[in-house]
């Protein structure tokens, strides 16, 4: 090795040391609180895990998964409670995703189209629609819980004024879901509206005018010129909204607490409006029922499910961009 090469090597090493100086704090945190937990979670899922005294944990193989999916015979009793709740909450979550996602896509697109026309005060309108997204779900939940209150809520108050019959919004189905979805729409559409709005702003308005001179109606112009030009933005909001909707937690947690139970049954043990993330949290929170192993197993099954859907969407997007 000649002197020049040595110098180069030394410089290279120095450069990597500098890179490390800038990168290491972040990478250590990222690895500790994001990568390591991925593996640790799988480990926990094979145990009847004790978070306060890990040495008292017991390896139970796939029992947590069985408990979540099919039920498990412990001693002489067949425990199906968790499986029932898990499937019920998965069904609930899918229902919420299926109903809320189209609304959380279409409403923002419509609002963004109206804002893009730039009527008077359009900037103020945008600020108003975006405002709820900066509020916390606890504040939003408190406001909407009281709005939907059967006796004293604004919504039933209005219904009574018009001579209608009051609705037990948070205590009966499907009204509990309607309340949750209305709250979600009010709370979250601002983000998607702004993203779509930014896309529409970039579309060349001369193309609109040219099409209109040719006799196309405005809805037609939007449909055939504007929407195709913002495909990327639409993909992004669908992608992020699907993930956010799968992770729904705060709205039902505060508005309904996971209820209501169908009439004639006890609240505990029925899925009501309980979602998967709520089940996971319950597995970690409640004293007697604290079962981190089961919670880990449920979130892994569910997380795998979300991952497949996300990858499917990403693959579709690749395909779409190609053709």
């Amino acid at each position, binding site marked *: 090795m000649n002197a020049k090469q040595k110098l180069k090597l030394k410089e290279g090493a120095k450069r990597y040391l500098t890179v490390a100086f800038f990168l290491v704090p972040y990478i250590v945190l990222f690895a500790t609180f994001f990568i390591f937990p991925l593996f*640790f979670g799988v480990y926990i899922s094979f145990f009847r895990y004790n978070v306060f005294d890990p040495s008292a944990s017991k390896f139970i193989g796939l029992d947590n998964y069985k408990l979540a999916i099919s039920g498990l015979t412990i001693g002489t009793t067949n425990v199906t409670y968790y499986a029932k709740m898990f499937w019920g909450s998965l069904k609930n979550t899918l229902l919420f995703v299926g109903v809320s996602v189209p609304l959380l896509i279409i409403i923002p697109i419509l609002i963004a189209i*109206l804002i893009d026309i730039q009527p008077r005060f359009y900037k103020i*309108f945008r600020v108003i629609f975006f405002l709820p997204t900066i509020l916390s779900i*606890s504040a939003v939940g408190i406001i*909407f819980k009281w709005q939907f209150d059967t006796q004293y809520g604004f919504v039933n108050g209005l219904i009574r004024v018009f001579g209608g019959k009051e609705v037990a919004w948070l205590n009966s189905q499907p009204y509990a879901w309607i309340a949750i979805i209305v709250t979600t729409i009010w709370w979250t559409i601002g983000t998607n509206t702004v993203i779509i709005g930014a896309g529409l702003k970039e579309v060349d308005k001369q193309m609109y005018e040219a099409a209109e001179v040719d006799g196309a109606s405005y809805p037609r112009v939007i449909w055939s010129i504007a929407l195709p030009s913002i495909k990327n933005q639409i993909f992004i909001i669908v992608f992020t909204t699907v993930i956010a909707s799968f992770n729904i937690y705060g709205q039902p947690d505060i508005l309904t607490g996971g209820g209501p139970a169908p009439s004639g049954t006890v609240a505990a043990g029925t899925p009501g409006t309980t979602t998967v993330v709520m089940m996971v*949290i319950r597995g970690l929170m409640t004293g007697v029922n604290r079962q981190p192993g089961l919670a*880990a197993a449920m*979130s892994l099954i569910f997380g795998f499910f979300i991952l497949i859907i996300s990858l499917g969407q990403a693959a579709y997007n690749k395909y779409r961009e190609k053709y």
Partner: protein
Amino acid sequence: MAIKSGVKRRKRVAFIILLVLSILWVLPLLWALGTSFKSANDMRTNVITIIPREFTFGNYQNLFENSAVYPIFKWLRNSALIAIIHTLLYLIIASMAAYAFGVMRWKGRNLVFGLLLATMAIPTVINLTPLFTMVIRFGWLDSEASWKSIFALIVPGLGGTFGLFIMRQFFMNIPYDLVESAQIEGLGHFGVYRKIVLPLGKSAIMVAGLFAFMGSWNDYLWPTLTAAVHFDPNWYTLQTGLATMQSQSNYDPGQVMAAAIISIIPVLIVYMFVQDKIIEGVSHTGIK
């Protein structure tokens, strides 16, 4: 001419629809504000009006007098403390990483960054249980020393990717000539980072900081989960405190509404000053 008058009419129609919708959007907030000033009797009999018939500060008074049970000012302090420390630490750590990824030239840079990007597809729900276990094992959730729970709320989020991506994207657009000429003048990388990249990247850093702050301030799930280990109301965040108040079976709706309004006011004030920055930051997330 026909098109011009069409444009006018279109603007008018759009204005009316948006006006009606935005009234619907503001109404819940106004109603909540009005309700927080209603007397208990007023709340029950005068449901749909926004302006109270008997205007009273009673709900706020009750809330403040009840501070042994619901120490709302401590919750505000905790939320502010956690959000500020978290945001500052995150900006330092992530802006340094963004410098390494966005400005420095080194072999393997794109590979490492690509790996980081790829992990975004992994659903965060998977990490809840292990993170919960970890912060307990670290001794951060100790009912004997519940103040330590602020570590559990400050630290794990420091590995977040969102702000890093925003800053890296911005730093990448800083002309490399600037960096090189500064180096010729004798600045090391730390000097370039501090004297050139940070001042130039101010707007991206501000957006990343706003999102870090709002995420921390508004977080509900994680603080509530961790609080369920130490159960010390003095160290609840505002969001956990609010949720606890409304989950009591005999809660006083007036007090809870007053607490919700108090929690909203600081956020609204900040929003008034920086709404353009926030909206701009969000609109960039849609542009690849």
